[in-house]
């Protein structure tokens, strides 16, 4: 068994235990041929997507994906009990978010099941997937994410968009982002009505 197979088997084992339906779907799913995987300078796996006319877009650093991920994780809102990561890619930044500072539920949302399959083949993700605070939505509709948030009823909510991935699937992440913004808005109005009123007036004045 080569290293990629080994990583894949370990990741799949955890995935099957926690999300058997998703594991089935992922197992039978192959990534689009437009995805290319290759080693970054530091030896970790990175990926790029080949677009039309041979143009390419990388989704993680070609030099040090883990170091770049730490930088992204630093942008995550710190005061949110529940944090959503939009765009999983190969997952480096989600791992970094969990490791750096987030103690509450981590909701991972990925638009491309094939890309998720590649992540499982490339990056050791067992500790992230095994963590009971991790929730995974791969190619799921906004409605199912909304249902989940209804059940979770988070005290406060924030999200980290990982633009190198979300920019590739704007039609998927746009509505998800709108949904999250709306939920955050509602949480804030509920928890801080006086401040909410003042911000509302401020915005009204901005129009005026």
């Amino acid at each position: 068994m080569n290293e990629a197979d080994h990583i894949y088997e370990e990741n799949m084992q955890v995935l099957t235990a926690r999300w058997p339906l998703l594991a089935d779907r992922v197992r039978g799913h192959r990534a689009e041929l437009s995805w290319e995987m290759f080693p970054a300078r530091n030896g970790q796996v990175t990926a790029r997507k080949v677009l039309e006319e041979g143009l390419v877009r990388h989704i993680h650093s070609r030099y040090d994906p883990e170091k770049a991920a730490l930088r992204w994780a630093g942008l995550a809102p710190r005061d949110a009990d529940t944090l959503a990561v939009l765009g999983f890619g190969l997952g480096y930044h989600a791992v970094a978010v969990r490791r750096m500072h987030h103690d509450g539920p981590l909701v991972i949302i990925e638009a491309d099941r094939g890309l998720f399959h590649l992540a499982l083949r490339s990056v050791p993700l067992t500790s992230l997937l095994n963590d009971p605070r991790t929730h995974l939505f791969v190619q799921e509709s906004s409605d199912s994410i909304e249902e989940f948030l209804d059940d979770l009823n988070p005290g406060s909510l924030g999200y980290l968009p990982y633009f190198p991935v979300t920019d590739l699937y704007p039609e998927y992440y746009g509505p998800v982002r709108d949904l999250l913004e709306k939920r955050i808005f509602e949480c804030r109005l509920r928890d801080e009505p006086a401040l909410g009123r003042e911000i509302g007036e401020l915005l009204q004045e901005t129009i005026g």
Partner: protein
Amino acid sequence: MNILVIRTHRLGDILQLTPMIGGLKRSYPDSTIYFLTGKDYAPLLEGNPAVDAIIPFPEKEYRYALKNEPDGYPSLFNACHDLIGELRRIRFDLIVNRQYEWGARFASLAGASRIAGGAYSPERGFYFDDQPSQDLVDAIKGDRKKNRRNLVDWACRIAGLPPEGHTRMYLPLGPLDRREAQRLINDSRSDSTRPIVAVQAGAARTFRQWGADNFAEVIDRLIHEKGRRVVLMGSEDERDLFTGRGIGIGGEERNLINLMGETSLKTTGAVLERCEVLITGDTGPMHMAAAVGTPVLSLFFGTAYPWETGPYGYGHFILYADLPCAPCFDPSRCERGHLCKGMITPSVVMAAFETFDAFRRGDPVGWECPDPSVRLFVTSRDTGGEQVLVPPEQLAGGMPERGLCIDDGPDGEYLPAILRARGEEIIRSFMEGESERGFTDFAAYLEEWLALRKTAPSLGDEGLKSTGELINACLEALRSRDTVALIDAIEYGFNPRLEQSSHKSFNANHL
């Protein structure tokens, strides 16, 4: 001590606060000064040694979105909430708010120990706690002609600064801005032995415009009677201002350099810095010129009041149509057909220019205008250090060459530090989802590197080759809109070169 200054729009109004910021830094040397400003105006403050952090606010985008994208309201609300949270975390000891109403709400929500300038509470509405702010409002609402204090000095009073003689306004320029200005002027085929006069004909508000025909006549006479080159400044929107005015726009007049729509904020400042004078109305570029130490010959009609908003500093000239009805409160409804604008003719402006020219040479000067209501003033300081307007003969003896330059700031800033900061700014844009801005800034950043590739001796032959390859790879990444590759290029391609060059003689002198 943490201090926040608030002013989000109008470039002149932001620059008018720079003496106050410098004063705050001198009074509280250990303080950290933040400036909350509109995103588009952040470059005005970048590099200002008195400003420790700029908090950019996308006010223009918000206004647009609020009016046109009602579904996006939750996002805007959340963004404001995030900003307020960030301001509260900083814990400000003092907020100086120079933007009433909207700024007052922000100032109050930020929760400072003390607010100077406009504040707000649901119980009191909008209010001022400091006497200078109240005095300023009273002065403007009452008999405005009694006010003889410039808004720059008012701002210093509001901030509680001692009357120590505030320094001039300040717009920081770097070697890259200056080189771009030089390139724009050199690209023209103008006679480089002639001094350059800048002309800003447009104005944001139509009632403040003097008229393209008037400016065209002045431009023509400056070139043909006074032996000057003229550089036309203006925004993209003003490009067509002189179409059909017969002053050689389009290339037939070699001593007319048309830069309308060609310059960024900082490049505008750098072009103005190279000019002997700017001729304009009460405009943003008027304040920019003053802020880079270039004298101004400004035209004030009844629509603006030079004691309040005139160019700040020593030795600026102001032509003022001093009618009994001036300054008018509602210029859009003038019952006299803007008589004041007709009083200042091109010949009057040329006479003022001659007076200015004589004044600079130290020759005796005086001012006589066929219409005695048209007055000419020079800016100076009273014994307390605040700005006053005096007739030019009272200041006979001229002024030192570029005498306004009191504190020129870090203009000799080390080039690698500037490029490194620009790279960081680009990375931040990409990571915050401001891709378009990031791509635009990256293209400009690449241009700098292209120029350096040709001229920086410290990189050596091998370095030149690999830098060229890196630049080509970046052009490809720009085409793909590959933000990750561009971030990598900055972190692992350009920054190491800056590191390498910091040990060698790679600085502005090589530009």
